[in-house]
């Protein structure tokens, strides 16, 4: 494992600029060695002139997209958080609207698939908010008040058929069933 590659990997996943001193600390290596490796890495990226570059600003280093790609990146970021929702996103939103506040695990039981990315997107769009129950260390998801207002409602309970759709028997049974098997999640898997 080369030092240069490790530096590259850490700079890539870091969501903030890092200094050579910090990198040396993380990698438990001498600063001079890190500095040399960083120089080599920067010159590689300089020669390549790709869509991703490493920016050196004072002592700080950070991965950035190339300036020439700025417009395209903006378009992408905007598209990601505007326009129509995908079907999976709509499903997730409808479950949160009628069942919320709901835990991620219950949401996933109802949908049958992992919902992490969709939840992140719905939150970025301000449609869903996360509420932490600090005593129980659980996060609940609910639709935002902005979204309720956008729907023209004064309360989420004013949604059509709210009472009958809020806790349909089949959903109750599904969630209860799984909770029984909770101590050993294997139990559910043993069946197969």
């Amino acid at each position: 494992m080369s030092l240069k590659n490790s530096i590259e990997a850490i700079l890539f996943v870091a969501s903030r600029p890092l200094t050579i001193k910090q990198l040396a600390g993380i990698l438990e290596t001498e600063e001079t060695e890190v500095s040399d490796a960083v120089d080599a890495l920067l010159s590689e990226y300089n020669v390549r002139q790709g869509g991703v570059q490493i920016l050196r600003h004072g002592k700080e280093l950070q991965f950035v997209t190339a300036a020439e790609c700025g417009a395209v990146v903006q378009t992408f970021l905007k598209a990601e958080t505007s326009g129509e929702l995908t079907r999976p996103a709509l499903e997730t939103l409808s479950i949160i609207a009628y069942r919320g506040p709901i835990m991620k695990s219950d949401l996933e039981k109802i949908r049958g698939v992992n919902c992490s990315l969709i939840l992140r997107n719905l939150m970025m769009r301000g449609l869903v908010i996360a509420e932490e129950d600090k005593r129980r260390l659980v996060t609940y998801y609910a639709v935002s008040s902005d979204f309720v207002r956008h729907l023209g409602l004064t309360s989420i309970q004013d949604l059509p058929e709210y009472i009958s759709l809020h806790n349909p028997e089949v959903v109750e049974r599904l969630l209860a069933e799984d909770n029984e098997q909770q101590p050993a999640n294997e139990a559910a898997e043993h069946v197969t």
Partner: protein
Amino acid sequence: MYKFKLERFEGPLDLLLQLIEHNELTITDVSLASVTEQYLEYLDKNSDLRPEELADFLVVAARLLLLKSRVLLPQLFIEDEEAEAGVDLTSQLVLYRLYVAAGMKLYKQYRSPLTCFARERAPRSTVISFSPPPSLAVDHLGNIFAVIIAELESFVRPAPELISRTISLQERIRAMRTLISSAHQLDFRQILADAKTRVEVIVSFLALLELVKQRHVLVTQDKDTDIILITHYEESYVTQE
């Protein structure tokens, strides 16, 4: 006889594989036939298996019995029937074992620190700005949720058909064993009379063959009427050998 320690098995093939490995056998038709009894014994002792689980175990039980009878009475089976009945349990088990072994390696790799990490988006770059989907109407949400609920219905409710089928199959194997060991003489047609499916006919027939093999019963066929009669094997017959 060594009592095979009964654990929860992941499925019928897992049980078979462990029986084979426990007896230090390689996977062949002959070795599978030889662990048939231990397999059935496990099923007998684990009456708490869920119907969904039991169905899978019973299907393999039927295939095992068929395979065993083929090993014991090869003249009764022609190639076509074997393929039709899907008795190639041996190949399936060899294939299954390949993936179980690969899974063990996969697990090591999955848990090892050699992981590729994706980049998490910087928290501060995720500025939340309210942007609702332009054409979402208020009753749209309810419709979508209603569809989800409808789909859950079929998933959560157990299939009654499967359960009844499983019970009948299990009962048949058990009934055959007790019936034959208690009755003095039986007409095989009686046993087949209320078999509803082809699988049940096969299972009945196989259970019978199994009992013949274990010298519980004697089977005779009348030349003129073709009636198959099942008689309890008398002690005296055994001592004559």
